[in-house]
């Protein structure tokens, strides 16, 4: 029976940059366990002849030719940036937050 511990949920939340309170962790960990159990029950139905699927369509080798197409202008590219400096995206200090 799959079960996800409170610590694992806290770790995943940290990796996903989701700030969870102790109460939320208490609440979410058992819920996620139930969801995992439900999903696992599907594995029980699938026989050895049903391989795991990652894509809905049975396609392979969808390629494009190596041809340059027009890019956005820098103004367009930077239009959604909260802060811009020297035609670059300005972001808060990185270290201390590095994965």
């Amino acid at each position: 029976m799959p079960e996800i511990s409170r610590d694992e949920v806290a770790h995943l939340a940290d990796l996903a940059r989701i700030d969870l309170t102790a109460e939320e962790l208490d609440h979410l960990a058992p819920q996620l366990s139930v969801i995992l159990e439900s999903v696992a029950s599907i594995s029980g139905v699938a026989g050895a002849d049903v391989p795991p699927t990652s894509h809905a369509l049975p396609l392979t080798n969808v390629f494009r030719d190596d041809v340059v197409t027009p890019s956005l202008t820098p103004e367009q590219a930077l239009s959604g940036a909260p802060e811009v400096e020297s035609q670059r995206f300005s972001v808060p200090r990185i270290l201390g937050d590095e994965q």
Partner: protein
Amino acid sequence: MTETLLSFDDALAAYDPALGLEVHVELNTASKMFCGCATEFGAEPNTQTCPTCLGLPGAMPVVNATAVESAIRIGLALNCEIAEWCRFARKNYFYPDMPKNFQTSQYDEPIAFDGWTEVEVDGETYRIEIERAHMEEDTGKSTHVGSTGRIHGADYSLVDYNRAGIPLIEIVTKPILGTGEKAPLVARAYVAHLRELLLGLGVSDVRMEQGSLRCDVNLSLAPAGSGTLGTRTETKNVNSLRSVERAVRFEVQRHAAVLSGGGSVLQETRHWHEDTGITTSGREKSDAEDYRYFPEPDLVPVAPSREWVESLRASLPEPPRERRARLQAAWGFSDLEMRDTVGAGALSLVEETIAAGAAPQAARKWWLADLARRANDTGVELSALGVTPAQVAEVQALVDAGSLNDKLARQVFDGLLAGEGTPAEIVAARGLAIVSDEGALGAAVDNAIAANPDVADKIRDGKVAAAGALIGAVMKEMRGQADANRVRELILEKLS
């Protein structure tokens, strides 16, 4: 903070090093891995981006066929198996160099795996097992703003996404054992070998100074003879051949000091400092599961047909080893000359110089004795020095024609590096050509004889060796622009 180091010899007496090298190669495709943005190096910031490589909602990636072809060719050149079916995967992490908050990579299904290659160090061959070569995309380029200019102590960072999405191939070795004291040299030779191989394939510019070939160095030590593997560190972004050698040497000495002091090595990434030649602690290495890899749902699997793979195999260029053997025989180089040429990254440069008309030994002499020193002094790769094989051949042609001597030729190289034009233009502008005007030469010889009567008498008495002093005086008056052999002949004629 200064690290305690054990001497390299003491370290190797007590421990066996295990190396692992991860090399990232930027492919030289015209467009990015998953979108049509250009990949030109040095373009103005954020001029080569689009919704796909900026990770904007709804943008859909499509794989660049040429990048897949290059990946397969690299795999084949490294004697790898080519996957019959493989997928891309998302490597999830939060770091502003990837605006998507994940890097599209490959995880447990690399396109190429289980290969090998061989490198030579001091006449000995080392077999390097290749774990895998997989496809991924490059990240954006961050500039750290703050008092230090480095990531440490930065107030904020500025990001340019021109590089984000450029196709990368990551080539990973299995642990390389049994190199002992040669570990730094084997690491360096492997990277040099890869560079040569990739250049031959024509799949990358492999310019380390521009970051199109980047190396992470894994190193661990185990007690000598134990046959085990110790805890490894991964030193990131070691981006010159010399630094690869230095970084391995430094980490061997640092690990040995930690272990012999009874401590244990922390599994972590290390930052390499080019200026001081040391590594410093980076971050604790994330477990792979922390990246929460999962198959990329927006890209369908890649399933190279065996026909395609075999046609690519058939089109592979001559492997570096065979090529070196062929060129060595054709040029008549000794083993040492050949090794120095390869080691200096000059093989193709020498080959092209010879193709442009220079004699093999002359081509070798200029690239290795003169230009390699200049490249070393300025800290750039020989190929990036700014002198072309055609120019070297042209300078040598002027020497062969008697218009330049070696000393004057070196001044022509000064001019080439200063961007003063073609060799012929520099000779003209700097007035470097050898003076073959017999009148001017004769007058200079007469002056030298008149100024040095004692020396002239000795020569008249048959002490021909004394002529050197007069030749020196003539060369000085002619500002070096004379053929020393002709000067000698004139002196002896006049004093016989």
